[in-house]
């Protein structure tokens, strides 16, 4: 078979169909992991792919160009409308003729955008977002069309108009305002400057999303792409109209591809579940190492304060109040104020701090456990459902157990002070 024989229209269409199928499978791979990840809280976000919800906060907000809105990201654009007449040649009755054709359109005459580091805040805390490479899905700040009579017309765009201008400019601006609720899909990693996590772009930058719409809006955007691409692949592969044995080949490839994809996705999701459990371990280890040391430190301070205040009082007691009364004017001013006062104990700050840190530690552990339970549940659910159940059985994939409280942990806790 020579190359010319091979490059027929139908073969090219088949190749295009297969390319569509490949792209569809890639989209399927993405939607799986993302759709099954639970939303994390800011202090419970572990290193890896994360989904977060909260409000956009920053100490130094940007000011948008058109509306002067305080925001963390904005994008603006000015379009100018034009009508042009283009000469077109055509043939009529074997003779060359020309005519003027009216075309319409608009050109961007000015535009700009800006973003900055910002923080996502929820009820537990904040996390830094580094929005480089992010895909923004933002809210409209401003939309207006106007003519040269409006002072806005020349304010943000050049005086020089485009060719064939109708003198009508349209101003667009959108962005993410300060304190606006946002939904983020990205990759969490440790920060370089302080001991905290930050959200950056994953290796696959197309997965980095910063949006002002809810997560439900984005759920399944790769899923629909998967089905559309597979359907278009079938159309190209089979051609329109006549169904034949080739279509069966496509379906076979599709089923194999889907099977491999599903198997791979279940494996990847299962690994994420295991990772979730390992991160619980990390936090338990953190608690074990941290709390004991904190307690030791606070105890040391308490003992120190007790000892010093006690000894100082004791030494003063030896002073003799009577002796002092007779000689008050002879004493130093500092000693005159010996009138009894209670010592100002300071260990309370350290104890409060200890309480705060223990609470924070337990909060983190609870969040990570909740995260694990959620991801494990969505994994187990998939393993139970048809047709994934079939793949799971073929690939010997097993479900994961959830974390439950022990019976002794379920009873009410009594705050008991006296033993």
């Amino acid at each position: 078979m020579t190359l010319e024989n091979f490059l027929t229209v139908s073969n090219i269409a088949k190749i295009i169909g297969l390319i569509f199928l490949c792209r569809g499978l890639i989209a399927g791979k993405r939607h799986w992991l993302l759709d099954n990840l639970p939303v994390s809280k800011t202090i419970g976000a572990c290193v890896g792919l994360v989904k977060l919800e909260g409000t956009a906060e920053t100490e130094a907000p940007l000011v948008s160009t058109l509306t002067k809105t305080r925001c963390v990201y904005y994008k603006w654009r000015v379009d100018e409308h034009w009508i042009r007449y283009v000469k077109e040649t055509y043939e009529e009755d074997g003779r060359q003729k020309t005519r003027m054709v009216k075309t319409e359109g608009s050109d961007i005459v000015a535009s700009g955008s800006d973003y900055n580091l910002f923080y996502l805040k929820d009820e537990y805390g904040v996390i830094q977002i580094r929005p480089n490479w992010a895909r923004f899905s933002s809210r409209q700040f401003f939309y207006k069309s106007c003519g040269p009579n409006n002072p806005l017309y020349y304010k943000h765009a050049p005086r020089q108009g485009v060719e064939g201008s109708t003198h009508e400019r349209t101003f667009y601006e959108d962005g993410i305002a300060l304190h606006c609720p946002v939904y983020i899909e990205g990759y969490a990693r440790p920060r370089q400057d302080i001991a905290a996590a930050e959200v950056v772009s994953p290796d696959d930058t197309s997965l980095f999303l910063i949006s002002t719409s809810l997560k439900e809006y984005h759920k399944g955007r790769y899923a629909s792409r998967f089905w559309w691409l597979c359907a278009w692949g079938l159309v190209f592969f089979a051609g329109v109209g006549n169904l034949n044995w080739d279509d069966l080949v496509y379906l076979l490839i599709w089923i194999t591809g889907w099977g491999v994809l599903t198997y791979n996705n279940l494996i990847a999701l299962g690994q994420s579940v295991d990772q979730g459990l390992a991160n619980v371990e990390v936090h338990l280890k953190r608690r074990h190492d941290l709390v004991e040391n904190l307690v030791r430190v606070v105890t040391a301070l308490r003992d120190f304060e007790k000892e010093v205040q006690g000894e100082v009082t004791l030494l003063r007691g030896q002073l003799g109040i009577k002796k002092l009364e007779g000689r008050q004017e002879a004493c130093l001013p500092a000693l005159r104020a010996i009138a009894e006062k209670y010592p100002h104990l300071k260990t309370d700050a350290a104890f409060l701090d200890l309480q705060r840190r223990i609470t924070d530690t337990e909060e983190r552990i609870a969040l990570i456990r909740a995260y694990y339970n959620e991801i494990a549940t969505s994994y187990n659910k998939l393993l139970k459902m048809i047709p994934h159940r079939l793949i799971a059985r073929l690939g010997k994939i097993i479900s994961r157990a959830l974390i439950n409280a022990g019976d002794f942990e379920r009873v009410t806790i009594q705050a008991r002070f006296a033993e």
Partner: protein
Amino acid sequence: MIGVFVIWVTGIYNGLVQSRLNVTKGLSQVDVQLKRRHDLIPNLVEAAKGYMAYEKETLEKVTKARQIAVDASNVQDKIQAENILTSSLRSLMAVAENYPNLKADQHVLCLQEELTATENKISLARQQYNEDVNRLNVSIQLFPDSIVAVKTGFEKAAFFQMELAEERQVPVVKF
């Protein structure tokens, strides 16, 4: 055709090698943080202890000096006693009057902050390690990469796990 196949397999193999190296790196990054803790915390504790000892000593000296100043019977003694007192006072401005205003608590708060930050850093490094392990394990098991992985002897790495089971228990806070 064979050429394409060789390039494809080489690509998979190189990806796997990179993942495995990342896991090794993740583990040594955890070690870096553990080493930091080992080197830093004892010294910080020593520093806080040093300050506490200093504060205690100075306060006791000042109190004793006051007593001597009050008890002093003649002018000569008084001047001498007050000299001791002023020099002690200068060394610790905290002792204004009445009960001493202890400052060691600030050092302890600072120490608590640093302890927490250190543990946070270790925890983040371990999470990063888990992420690296996850990537390696996924790429080893995915079809068709798994064939290359098995043929070239790649093995799954283990996630972070505690060596001692009792470390999972709630630490006892007792004073």
